[in-house]
């Protein structure tokens, strides 16, 4: 048994070493810096003033709380809408029809597309001189580009939400398709033969069956959109600003004191995501225990 134990330890050490030194090491060092410990500029004291500054100081409080609000709004809205679109798409596409394979491919096309490219695509399509505005002016809906609603670089984060919907709907779609495929149509046929109508089959048969996968995918998407940088950096405005962009900008600030605040922000983002994930595990465990 001793040999096996050694084998386990030796096999697991290299990847764990990478994750511990780079990932947890980075978080730990970031946390130290957020507490004001910056030997590089001769600061050794430890305190929570960076956290206090970010959240409550007159200078940053408004920026932080509006940013947090925007973060929650963008993540909730994009996760929910992407899941809804994908669910209807996946349910509709199960039937056979003309050009099904092509549609299937297009629906999963955004899956491997980097977020960065999706953000650029959203600018090309939804900006005031984008493809949609041109189409609208062609059919006489609008005159000048200014008549088209501001959907990109707007203060409500609509462009960011659109980009996440575009990208994550494909992710939800793939997951739902495989769940629906493995379920087959037996349950629905059974429900139909028992007299359930369309809505009842959806509400009481399909939805409960896909819910666990839909929910865990939602957690992944929510956590990602809450902490990602590229999309809000390209499609957002200066105020209100999503937290990851704010953290990054603090960090790049030539004033080295702002660095602590940037670190504090990134730790706050991580804590919020962590609370969410723990809550999710607690919820699923509670459900398993109940069942």
């Amino acid at each position, binding site marked *: 048994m001793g040999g096996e134990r050694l084998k386990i330890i030796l096999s697991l050490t290299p990847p764990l070493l990478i994750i511990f030194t780079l990932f947890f090491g*980075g978080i730990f060092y970031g946390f130290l810096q957020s507490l004001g410990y910056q030997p590089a500029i001769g600061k050794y004291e430890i305190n929570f003033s960076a956290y206090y500054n970010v959240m409550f100081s007159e200078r940053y409080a408004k920026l932080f709380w509006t940013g947090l609000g925007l973060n929650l709004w963008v993540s909730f809205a994009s996760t929910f809408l992407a899941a809804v679109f994908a669910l209807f798409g996946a349910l509709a596409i199960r039937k056979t029809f003309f050009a099904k394979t092509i549609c299937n491919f297009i629906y999963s096309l955004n899956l491997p597309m980097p977020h960065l490219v*999706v953000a650029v695509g959203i600018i090309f399509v939804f900006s005031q001189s984008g493809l949609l505005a041109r189409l609208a002016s062609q059919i006489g809906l609008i005159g000048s580009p200014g008549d088209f609603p501001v959907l990109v670089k707007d203060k409500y984060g609509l462009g960011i939400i659109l980009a996440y919907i575009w990208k994550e709907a494909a992710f939800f779609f793939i997951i739902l398709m495989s769940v629906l495929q493995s379920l087959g149509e037996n349950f629905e046929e059974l429900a139909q033969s028992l007299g359930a109508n369309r809505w009842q089959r959806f509400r009481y048969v399909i939805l409960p069956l896909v819910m666990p996968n839909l929910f865990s995918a939602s957690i992944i998407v929510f956590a990602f959109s809450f902490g990602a940088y590229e999309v809000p950096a390209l499609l957002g405005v200066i105020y209100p600003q999503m937290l990851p962009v704010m953290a990054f900008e603090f960090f790049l600030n030539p004033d080295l004191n702002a660095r602590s605040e940037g670190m504090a922000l990134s730790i706050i983002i991580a804590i919020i995501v962590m609370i969410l994930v723990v809550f999710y595990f607690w919820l699923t465990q509670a459900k398993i225990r109940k069942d």
Partner: protein
Amino acid sequence: MNNNLKKINIYAIYLGAIILILPLIAFFINAFSFRWFYPQVIPKELSLQAWVRLKLIPKPGQRTFEGFIELWASNPAVIKALLNSLSIGFLVTIVSIIIALPAARVLGLLNFRFKKLIIFIMVSPTILPPIAFVLGLNINFISWGFSGNYFGVCLVHLVPIMPYVVLTMTGIFANYNPDFEHQARTLGANKTRTFLLITLPAIAPGIVVAALFAFLVSWSQYLLTFLIGAGKVMTLPLLVFSTASSGNPALTAAISIIFIFPAILILFFTSKFVSGESGATSGFGKI
């Protein structure tokens, strides 16, 4: 009676497909048109101007084989970024698979104490956002001399990639029967031969999928490369981002097309393997 509803259903799917493909259409129009002014929907003239300005296609009159070679040999920024992206992606993919292989085997085949905890630690980088660790790591990398160079960028790419590779390959080993190896060994094959002739063919499809995912995750990395590379390691996503923020749609579109090409290629090859059950699929949400 249900026919109308069915028709609406199908039209909705077509509409959805058209909406989804709009950005891609816009990419191609932008990249191959010149002076595509509002309110034109279809550009008045097609042009390779953007590609000429990026030094990917020679000026008219020089479009011979030698012309192309000469232009590309002059090392334009896009080619340089492309080569960087490709080589970092390949290197990181190979290293991550070599590192993950023994770990995945142990996690997939054996049961031991703390296994769940170890898996949880392994996948933790997929849960927390990269900004949470890279700001702190950046300072460490500067003092270790890993900042602003190729090696540091490769090293930091391992962090988001490792979880997917380990997870995908653990799944493969969970369905793998090591008894065949014992049989080969009792029949006289040595360790290397057993690995090459028995183990490798059995896990090869899984390795291919893990490798494609790993490559794609590295390929689309922006924040990590930007911070650790400190502007000295230029990759395609960095180029797309800076061109997009400077606001030239034609150039942005042209670089983006090069950037998304491997992604679409990989989707073609993996669409068979991609399903909700594979641990790697969750990686797609993060690219």
